[in-house]
């Protein structure tokens, strides 16, 4: 009979950091639990960073492989989440670097974008746009792709960490090995730039 991870691990072990320790000690099920906890976060982080879902899935695998290979070196004084995001960030940077000679388009899959246009109404009310100015959902997706694709990779990744992963400035700074002051200025630039490109495309 399949034994759940709970039956192997005591309550104290169930933090992310405790799970790292367990899998380093040879309990594979602890590593699998970490995969379950983080796979959606990491795959979406990379997808939003590089704009290519299929590649994001491959890089997510790679991220976990690195966690597995270097788990013995994990220092439990650090948060596991900071570490795994650091790996994912580095892999995304490398991917973008590799592509920089022949850039592929930043692509949001149809499946991940709403078909209805209810949110357009929110924006319209905020800006009192005329009906002819209101974009379809498809047009808006194209505008966001363009706007995200234009951002500098570091700014884009910091923005994704903030907006989607709800990380604090301090956590983002740890991932980038930088200061929270730098993160602050990156996010200011990222948000302004994103807003400006969206405005140019007449999203709002």
């Amino acid at each position, binding site marked *: 009979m399949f034994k759940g991870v709970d039956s192997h691990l005591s309550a104290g072990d169930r933090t992310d950091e405790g799970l790292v320790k367990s899998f380093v000690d040879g309990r594979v099920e602890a590593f699998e639990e970490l995969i379950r906890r983080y796979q959606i976060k990491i795959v979406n982080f990379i997808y939003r960073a590089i704009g290519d879902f299929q590649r994001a899935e491959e890089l997510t695998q790679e991220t976990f492989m*690195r966690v597995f290979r270097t788990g013995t070196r994990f*220092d439990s004084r650090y948060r596991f989440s900071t570490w795994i995001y650091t790996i994912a960030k580095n892999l995304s940077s490398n991917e973008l670097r590799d592509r920089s000679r022949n850039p592929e388009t930043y692509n949001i899959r149809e499946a991940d974008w709403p078909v209805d246009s209810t*949110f357009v109404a929110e924006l319209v009310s905020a800006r009192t746009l005329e009906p002819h100015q209101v974009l379809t959902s498809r047009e808006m997706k194209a505008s966001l792709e363009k706007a995200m694709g234009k951002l500098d990779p570091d700014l884009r990744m910091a923005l994704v960490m903030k*907006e989607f992963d709800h990380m604090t400035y301090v956590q983002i700074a740890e991932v980038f090995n930088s200061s929270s002051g*730098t993160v*602050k200025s990156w996010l200011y630039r990222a*948000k302004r730039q994103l807003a400006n490109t969206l405005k140019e495309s007449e999203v709002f």
Partner: protein
Amino acid sequence: MRCELIQPHLAAYVDGELEDALRLDVEKHLEECRGCRETVLDMRLASAVLKKWKPAQPTMPMVEVLRKRIREEEIARHTAGPEETERVHVAAGRSALFGARRLALAASILLALGVGIVTWEWLTVSRKPTRADAVAALGRAAMKVDKVEDLRAAGLALHGVIADHWASPKPNVDALVQLEVVGTMMQTASEVGQASDVGKILNILGEERVVMRLREEIKEFGDGTGECVAALLAPDSAAADEPSGEDNTLLDEAAKLEDRGELEAALEKYREASRDRLLAMHSFLHQAALEMRLGRDGEAVETLKKAQELTKPDTFNRELVNQLSQRAEHAAELRSQIDELKAKLLRTENEFEVLSEIGNLQVKAGNLKGAKETCEEIIREFGDPGHRRGQLRARLLKAWCLREMNQYASAFDELEPLITDAADAYPDLAMLAQYERAKTFQLRGRFAQAVDDYTELANTPGISPSCYAALEFQVAYIFLHDLNSPREANKIFRQLGREAYREEPFGRLAAQLVSNP
């Protein structure tokens, strides 16, 4: 308050990341300023658009896929033999290629053997040298550099600092990585006589003036085809030692000849005589270096006297021999201290501390064999938990000695289990051990594995930006020099040249490389 002062805080305001006082300032300003209110609204709208992007579900069963990959990797690890053998062959060919030039360069031979000449002023600093000390001192040294040989001497000096640092009870990962990378670059660059590389190293130090001059000089130097001819054509050239008395006679005779064929024959004779003398001198230097490594410093002093007879006053070679002699004499002094400590061992209760000190002094004296044996004694005698760190450190130092003595296979045997054993309680030692393994891979010509190790280290959580930059730089350097992939190297240089690493020496260097390739 003016908009320029407020604007940088607006994103943090929207994200709720401002401390109270600043937040109140921003709110007060927003009441008064329509423009900034617009910016805040734009930012909120942009976030609203972003939020509509739903998270995607992975299409593959991640747990199962990874389980399979881990299994495959473990199988692959056990069957990696043939590929490795091939890499070693390639590396052997490469060393043979460089071998001829290497022989002509006494300093780099000695560097390879691990005999550092400690000359520069940073060693007068009483505390342990840090990376900043070393780089600053190197910068000062470079300002005085007139000849490429001086640069090699600086490389040797750097090696002395590295050896010293290894001897410290708590080696600093960050400083060591930085020092070793500069040292490796210097060594490689001066061995192959590549003007541009030495130039790049000096670029780190911001010495454009010296770089320009050196570039010109090394061009001649790097052309190993005719050191002696170069000396004849340009008597002031830094490329060769001055001719000895006997060589001079040959030269004088040659100068009298007008017939082209006869002149060439006379020059050939001169070249041979001169080359024989230089080769003999270098072989003495080689011998002295070996003797020091074995702790026979008295014999080294004698050997160096013979080398000295073959050099002329006021030349670089003479200077090099003198420095080595000083080092050998210093080693003799250290040996008397070591002997005292050894006598003390019999009646002390702090056997571990005394042994550690002996090992440290042996490293400083360049007696790698002795240091290795001391480490072995520590490893044998102090297996108890109370000396855990000391024992792990001794294993690390032993591996370092083995690598410095070019005993790579034994170094690997030490390092592999050490990385695992140190991982739990002493991650710093585990990192240094992995760094050692990476370097050993690199020296063995197993570049792909070296790149893997360096990359893994660079991804260690909590690593400092300077260390990250140095490690990634090392990877780029391997791509550029050993794997013949300038494109890969450039990618890394570009990444390091970005804002986050601009303040680091290697980030700055990478930025320069990207802007003028």
